[in-house]
């Protein structure tokens, strides 16, 4: 079993790397590119029963910084 934690900068936070990637895509002629945000995905291998509440608390306290980031948690069988 795996948990995937996807972390992105909050929309209100400046993401210069995302802006640079968006510009590069426009230079390549990719049409319709709007805002680009760059974050990270953390893959956690799990054994035994999954404590989803614990995973949420770890995602909030350690894996992301709620001041500047949002996260989503996906648990894969």
């Amino acid at each position, binding site marked *: 079993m795996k948990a995937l934690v996807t972390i992105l900068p909050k929309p*209100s936070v*400046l993401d210069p790397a995302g802006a640079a990637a968006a510009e590069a895509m426009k230079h390549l002629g990719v049409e319709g590119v709007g805002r680009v945000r760059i974050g990270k995905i953390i893959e956690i291998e799990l054994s035994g029963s999954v404590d989803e509440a614990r995973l949420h608390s770890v995602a909030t306290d350690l894996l992301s910084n709620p001041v500047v980031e949002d996260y989503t948690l996906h648990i894969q069988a």
Partner: protein
Amino acid sequence: MKFAVVRFPGSNCDQDCVLAINSLPSASAEIVWHKDESLAGYDAVVLPGGFSYGDYLRCGAIARFSPIMTAVKAFAAKGGTVVGICNGFQILCESGLLPGALIRNRGLHFICRHVGVRVEVWNSRFTSAACTGQVLNLPIAHGEGCYYADHATLANLRANDQVLLRYCDTQGRIQADANPNGSLENIAGIRNEAGNVFGLMPHPERACDPLLGSTDGRALFESLLS
């Protein structure tokens, strides 16, 4: 006055802090390992610069959970003086001892040079040896020093005189082109609401000896002794 300088795995300004503090009259500093759990006998704590835990995950995110941080939080809760410099500032924000966060520099580059910072508030325990409006020439060395906080937090910081240092030009003007990293409102250093915890991105400990090009950092350390 006895200082504890906390050494995390990856700290690299700890000895600079010890040297700077030991050069002051009536002050001494010792290294405290991050796995220690007590700060008994110390009058002030410094979290130094560096790359604790390799900056993995986020700067300061893992150091925040080091055993010593429980003692640092208790020390701060009792009104003890805590200073975080550069990575130390990042650790203080990650641990919730200071509001806001430090994110990637606006220009994406690691910046290592001297900058001007203006002292915004003199009547704090961290800036009392300086004057309001005084411009200090201090080095910065960081890739993630862009201070961010939401509007409500920024309003609180202003209302409570918590912003102690702002990036400025040589004339002391707070301007966009004097802002090296994109920090909101040119913020270079803040204290907590209680006034006993201070975090700053510039390195005063690297500006305490004429050989290093500036001695303006001494004022911040001397403030702690008065």
